[in-house]
């Protein structure tokens, strides 16, 4: 159990700075998800906390102890890797016990801890197997087991579910969440999957090109994005962006108007300034996604209730929304509060 705090954490490779100063105070037992597209620096950030990358400037504190120059093993952390990183020649038991053996934990305690972890993760029948004899989900569990047995202060997850198929991913997501609740261990979790981020996080850090664009509770981030990037990245389908001057708002040039697909309604062409032709629709049952091409260029997606009539392709429709749902972003991507 521990708090983690990052203070103006920066990372450079040579002269190229890839992390431009991240600040966050993580409370004990909090589940933080770092989310962003490939190359945004989210893994680098996590690896700096783990001690696998050096810190260029700023500081990492775990439980108020500065750990910038502390070896990973002495940071009291455990990490789950994307490809599990199980030792191929060791049995499941040995994989989980390896760290404890190095730490010279007594034999009977190692056995007790591994047995306990195996119990929690339903790995009991597989303890004698080698990793190659396990399925993807089981390997994932072994990787988690290896983290659990060490009873670390902080769990670090580096895209742990990205190698699993979709169904297993949902299942493991739930398991990770309930496990973390149960153990109450402070966790940092890196993912590029915004659904994982939304469902797992107590708070999330949305990273964009080495900058933490927004840090907050998932629903707050969703409903009140701080930047154009966050609005576009969080939510599927993404926020629609339209040139703001078209709406008649009094805003600087090049500003954009963002509106979530579920806030847009299809109305008769005559009732709206915005009109577009339906390109195609995706009926998903509970809801339908209607993709339109605006008459003056630009694409808009509308998410409407599945019970509503689905417009035929090529139909011209008007678009309407309430002014309270619209968000304005200036040309540099930052949010403008009106």
């Amino acid at each position, binding site marked *: 159990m521990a708090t983690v705090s990052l203070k103006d954490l920066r990372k450079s490779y040579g002269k190229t700075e890839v992390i431009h100063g991240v600040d966050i105070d993580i409370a004990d037992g909090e589940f933080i998800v770092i989310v962003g597209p490939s190359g945004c620096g989210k893994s680098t950030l996590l690896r700096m906390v783990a001690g696998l990358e050096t810190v260029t400037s700023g500081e990492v504190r775990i439980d108020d102890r500065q750990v910038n120059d502390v070896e990973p093993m002495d940071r009291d952390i455990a990490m789950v890797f994307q490809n599990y*990183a199980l030792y191929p020649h060791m049995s499941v038991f040995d994989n989980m016990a390896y760290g404890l053996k190095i730490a010279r934990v007594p034999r009977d305690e190692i056995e007790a801890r591994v047995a306990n972890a195996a119990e929690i993760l339903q790995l009991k029948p597989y303890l004698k197997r080698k990793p190659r004899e396990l399925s993807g989900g089981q390997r994932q569990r072994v990787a988690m087991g290896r983290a659990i047995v060490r009873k670390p202060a902080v769990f670090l997850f580096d895209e742990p579910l990205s190698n699993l198929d979709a169904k297993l991913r949902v299942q493991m997501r739930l398991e990770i969440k309930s496990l973390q609740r149960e153990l109450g261990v402070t966790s940092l979790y890196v993912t590029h999957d915004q659904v994982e981020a939304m469902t797992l996080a107590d708070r999330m850090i949305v990273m964009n090109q080495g900058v933490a664009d927004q840090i907050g509770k998932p629903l707050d981030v969703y409903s009140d994005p701080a930047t154009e990037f966050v609005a576009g990245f969080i939510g599927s389908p993404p926020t629609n962006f339209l040139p703001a001057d078209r709406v008649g708002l009094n805003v600087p040039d090049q500003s954009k108007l963002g509106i979530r697909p579920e806030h847009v309604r299809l109305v008769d062409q005559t009732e709206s300034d915005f009109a577009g032709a339906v390109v195609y629709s995706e009926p998903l049952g509970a809801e339908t996604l209607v993709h339109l091409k605006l008459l003056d260029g630009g694409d808009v997606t509308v998410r409407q209730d599945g019970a509503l009539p689905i417009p035929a392709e090529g139909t011209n429709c008007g678009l309407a929304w309430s002014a309270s749902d619209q968000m304005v972003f200036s040309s540099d991507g930052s949010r403008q509060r009106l």
Partner: protein
Amino acid sequence: MAGQSGGMVEKRGRGLWLTHLGLIIGIAFIFFPIWLAFVASTVEQQDIVRPPMPLLPGDQLVENYTRALTAGINAPVATMLMNSLIMALGIALGKIAISLLSAFAIVYFRFPGRMVFFWLIFLTLMLPVEVRIVPTYEVIANFGMLNSYSGLILPLVASATATFLFRQFFMTVPDELAEAARVDGAGPMRFFFDILLPMSRTNIAALFVILFIYGWNQYLWPLLITTDPSMNTIVMGIKQMFPSGDDFAHWPTIMATSILAMVPPVLVVIGMQRLFVRGLVESEK
């Protein structure tokens, strides 16, 4: 194609017989000299020198082999076998140990001149033993290592090929494994012994076979630095048994020695084969 059972490779009927016949003839062709050597090692001297040469084993097997092993011509073959064994094992194990460590250094540590060292090692591939044999002899002679096991082994222990092979293998080991070991608290040498070494098991076995035979078959180097018959290795020892001038060769003993010289490499190949094949079958790292 549907209905056409059997793969492209599988042959049936006459084709199958012809293939086997071809293979059997090939094997007989290659095996025949070895058979002749074996026959020659089981008969008496007169049977060999008086044509035609017999094609079936004689009754002197035990006598000839006992004489070779205990007395030999210059030195007992048992001594030479032991010398060869020590040299071959020393070279194989030494090469494996050194190249494992140097590959480990080159792949996992960032030190100044890392690539320079790699290329220096690689460069030695271009200098076979024969090219550097005179300066090497000079060095070994100055160290007083003539007629010694260390003189036989040490100059042949460095191996660019094995270093390169292990380097390539280590580079296929995912970085995450090294990082996981770091998080688990394993230091570099611990990682090397606990994780890298067991994972290289099959590579080591394959290399051992190749290097053992390489060491066993060394001819020129032992010939140069061993003048004392008791330090002769068996491969060069066979040549030493040939008569000089008007002496007459005792062929049954020489042939028995040749057969004995072939046995250890064959045993190594057979013994390591299982591990070797398992290494090829285990696809996942």
